[in-house]
């Protein structure tokens, strides 16, 4: 069965590999590259724990083949902080206690940081709609929404 040579830029660094057609992007990240910040939750395209940004848009990496990402840019939770400084969304989840067990957190942050790129001043309703493809089983949505609002304010101030 076919193997494919792929070159994927992940958090700014290019990774090359020979992969089977059936390798999922989430497994490529976690198992081939040992980047375990991206979680696997439901494995059924429901929970959003595996959300990464593919060419800037949040997608569920359990439902993308690694070979489909050839030539593309992927951003994972490991790529949020820069120069030792937390991304405003990370700082916000910390400040607003936007997590309990933390399992959904990487996916929540990848979806909500993309939302803020597209809509820097979302209403509460827009935030709730925006993260509706990401499930939190600790039911921490109230604080997650507060965290996204906090990050929006931080980013408006310039970070």
């Amino acid at each position, binding site marked *: 069965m076919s193997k494919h040579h792929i070159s994927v830029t992940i958090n700014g660094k290019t990774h090359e590999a020979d992969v089977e*057609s*059936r390798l999922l992007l989430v497994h490529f990240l976690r198992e081939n590259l040992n980047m375990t910040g991206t979680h696997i939750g439901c494995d059924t395209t429901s929970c959003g724990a595996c959300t990464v940004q593919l060419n800037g848009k*949040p997608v569920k990496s359990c*439902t993308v083949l690694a070979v489909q990402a050839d030539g593309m840019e992927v951003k994972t939770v490991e790529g949020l902080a820069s120069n030792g400084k937390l991304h405003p969304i990370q700082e916000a989840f910390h400040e607003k206690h936007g997590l309990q067990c933390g399992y959904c957190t990487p996916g929540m942050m990848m979806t909500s940081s993309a939302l803020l790129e597209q809509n820097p001043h979302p209403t509460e309703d827009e935030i709730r709609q925006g993260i*509706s*493809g990401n499930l939190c089983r600790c039911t921490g949505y109230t604080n997650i929404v507060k965290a996204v609002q906090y990050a929006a304010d931080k980013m408006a101030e310039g970070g």
Partner: protein
Amino acid sequence: MIPPLFDYVAPRTLSEAIDTLAGNEDAKILAGGQSLIPLMRFRLASPALLVDLNRVDGLSYIKEEDGCLKIGSMTRESAVEQSPLVHQKYSLLADAVSVISDPVVRNLGTVGGNLANGDPGNDHPATMLAYEADVVAAGPDGERVIPITSFFLGLYESALAPNEILTEVRVPAKRDHSGGAYLKLERKVGDFATAAVAAQVELDADGNFASVGLGLTNVGLIAIKATAAESFLKGKAPSDDNIREAARLAAEAAQPIADVRGSEEYKRSLVRTYTLRALRLAVQRAKGG
């Protein structure tokens, strides 16, 4: 869960994709992959070859041309959702795309894939039945236009030949005094509809129904066009009594089965209530523009 082994190709042109399909009986087209990849992971589908359309140029667009709203088959649901043109003039479609699965899935899911999959639980089939849209299929002998009313043949079965690719959806261009609405009940964001109703209406100079389109989601083996309800309303006033009778007829046309989402009786009742509400909203929108 990991899919079974398969081969994968990513053609750059439509003709290359069609040629590849023609030579491989056990091939499947990969569009957004948001239904197909889960099916493969559950081993409910095991194609020998995936022909990925994501690198074929020219299949992603939304434009008005030749009396139609033309949507390229690889257009992402999120692109339709964010289209000002769709929001301004195609309220039924705008409603429908905003409730397809969830916002993250909509970044990859495509309009063409949603239709070609032939799943009665998807939202575009009933929507396009209400619009009386056409789809364009490209094959080795060129293009053909298939009316949506003859596109769905059975569960997961469409009029597309194995070597044809759905390339475009054509929705009739917005007419004056027309409007539509899509109402869906889902247990949670991302679930398939318990039931949903698509309504598209046009009013004549006297304010009566010039045309009515009604599509029903997930209450049969295929999306259902509620034709008895449509023809009942044609030429009649949008009165409460008439709309109630149409809603009753639409519920009669539904063929739901009992499952985890509810009993047959419940779903039929839901179709009646949602037809009523969708028609009222569609009429209100038609009057507003």
